[in-house]
């Protein structure tokens, strides 16, 4: 990524809280992120980390009665937090395209593919019907559908999972939005189809120069596609940096634990690393101190900060809390030297 690229999205101190029994709990807790043109920013975390909540906050899909969103999401001088519905409708689809995880649930089963793609063109552009039809075929061709004219007349159930996801991408890019949010776009797909869809996303990005916010739990997908990475745990960003910084020199205990629990061993008697405890629920979440501390109980309390903040360890590489400096895995026996990276170089002999 070129840092001189235009800033698209500037999220500052975003809090998204859900109401549970008349009390609000932060699912996204003080997150600040930026997305530039031509950048693929990957948001990684397990379920319950708040990564999807962050995405839905950006496109304003929360019911204001049960959700409280505070902070700033600046898009071209416009603050998307608290924006009224009429203005938001002009932005969704036109400025921000969204790709969902489950393509069958995201498509209307009673509408032909062509109509569904044309829908956002009707709303956001002044194209007439024949121009719209031409654009629909062009889009279907662009996302690699072999026979656009035929597919435009089909219904979602007639397509395979990979084809449906291509249609979803076609809808998302119909108005050439500067921002695309892809929430687990390949989780429901086979590996070979996943590879095709990720290639397609990259090609499209090169073509229209969008910034992509890629939300996923698959570290492999991140390593293959992203430019920058933000790792989330319990609603907070715990580590952030370029893909090389985060994968070649992971620092935060959570990032290191995740990488370590990936199955990649060649000996089958080897035990996988397990992160102790469970991801806390929204209500039970500990809100003071280091939120990851209960999962690494062997680390002394003194190694954690009282109010962990993000520290910049090298330009662009941020890590929350100071515990990374002394962190070690108990099965390694000896504490690793501070900042010496980890044993995870993750190169497989394939």
């Amino acid at each position: 990524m070129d840092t001189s690229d235009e800033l698209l999205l500037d999220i500052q101190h975003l809090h998204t809280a859900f109401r549970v029994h008349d009390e609000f709990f932060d699912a996204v807790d003080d997150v600040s992120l930026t997305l530039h043109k031509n950048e693929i920013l990957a948001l990684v975390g397990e379920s319950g980390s708040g990564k999807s909540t962050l995405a839905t906050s950006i496109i304003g899909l929360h019911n204001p009665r049960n959700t409280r969103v505070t902070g700033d999401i600046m898009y071209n001088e416009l603050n998307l937090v608290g924006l009224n519905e009429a203005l938001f409708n002009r932005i969704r689809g036109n400025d921000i395209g969204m790709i969902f995880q489950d393509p069958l649930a995201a498509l209307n089963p009673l509408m032909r593919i062509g109509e569904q793609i044309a829908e956002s063109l009707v709303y956001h552009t002044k194209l007439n019907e024949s121009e719209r039809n031409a654009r629909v075929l062009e889009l279907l061709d662009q996302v690699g559908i072999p026979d656009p004219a035929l597919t435009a007349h089909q219904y979602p159930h007639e397509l395979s999972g990979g084809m449906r996801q291509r249609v979803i991408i076609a809808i998302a890019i119909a108005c050439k939005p500067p921002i695309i949010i892809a929430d687990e776009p390949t989780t429901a797909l086979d590996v070979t189809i996943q590879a095709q869809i990720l290639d397609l996303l990259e090609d499209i990005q090169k073509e229209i120069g969008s910034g992509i916010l890629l939300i996923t739990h698959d570290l492999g997908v991140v390593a293959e596609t992203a430019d920058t990475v933000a790792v989330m745990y319990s609603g907070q960003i715990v580590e952030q940096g370029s893909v090389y910084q985060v994968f070649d020199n992971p620092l935060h205990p959570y990032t290191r634990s995740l990488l370590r629990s990936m199955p990649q061993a060649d000996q089958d008697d080897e035990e996988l690393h397990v992160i102790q405890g469970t991801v806390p629920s929204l209500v039970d979440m500990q809100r003071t101190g280091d939120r990851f501390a209960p999962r690494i109980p062997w680390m002394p309390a003194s190694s954690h900060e009282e109010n962990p903040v993000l520290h910049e360890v090298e330009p662009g590489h941020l890590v929350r809390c100071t515990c990374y400096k002394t962190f070690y895995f108990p099965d390694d026996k000896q504490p690793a030297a501070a900042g010496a990276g980890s044993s995870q170089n993750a190169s497989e002999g394939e």
Partner: protein
Amino acid sequence: MSLIEIKDLNIHYPIRSGFFNRITDYVYAVDGINFDIEEGETYGLIGESGSGKSTTGKAIVGLEKVTSGQIMYNGEDVTNKHNRKQMKYNKDVQMIFQDSMSSLNPRKRIEDIIAEPIRNFEEMTDNEERTRVKELLDIVGMPSDAMYKYPHEFSGGQRQRIGVARAVATHPKLIIADEPVSALDLSVQAQVLNFMKHIQREYNISYLFISHDLGVVKHMCRNLAIMHRGRLVEVGTRDDIYNHPQHIYTKRLLAAIPKVNPSGREKDKANRRAVEKEYQEHQSKWYDKDGKVFPLQQISATHSVALPPDEVAELKSEVG
């Protein structure tokens, strides 16, 4: 003699159409496959959706009607229901499902869920049964008060562990694990896989591990088979498949796995595109004229590949 031998297993579904709803064609979901599972080993069956891997698993536990072929258990034919009953096959072969939520009855307490196979196959007093359920929960690392709760009170990983506890309740010899960790987060997945291995060592259980995730299979299985279009395209040891893949489909699957190594990603991508191109352009070399996979040909003691006969001679001389 292997624990389980699958011999020329075929499962075909009829396609009915026309005015009289006559059978016009068949879907060849499983089309003549052979493999053996040894005692205490984990055998991997890999394939994409629609390859027939789950159908094979279901046929082995008896949930799917076999069109032709045999399933041998300890040398006895257990393809039909009567033999299965006599052999106590249904007690010895259990299953773990992918979706833990829909495979546990939401209206039953964990105690009843885990005790169900015990009640079916063993006679125990209430006290013995309760002790056994506690023991089983302990094996999968759950507290014993979990038995009074309902499935919705647990997280996905905990539910999957309950599924594992239920599968081992009757001291089975073989467990069919159909994508047991696909729906789980990375750290939870590690936990469930560790428990599965631990149980295997303790009770000498065999697994048929069905998955689309080549990383997980590599970790779990010493021997594996790759399935495509209802047939096996490549069978071998972990080393054969991962380090010396011969069939283009296997290469394609391996190339598609995202690697956690950002520095090599341009190279990986180039490699992936090259393999994909070969796969698209040379279909006729790897599949017969009906698009079917060729019969398996042995190229070394452990390694078989589905190739046309003339290709094999070449390979054999290469492999030596």
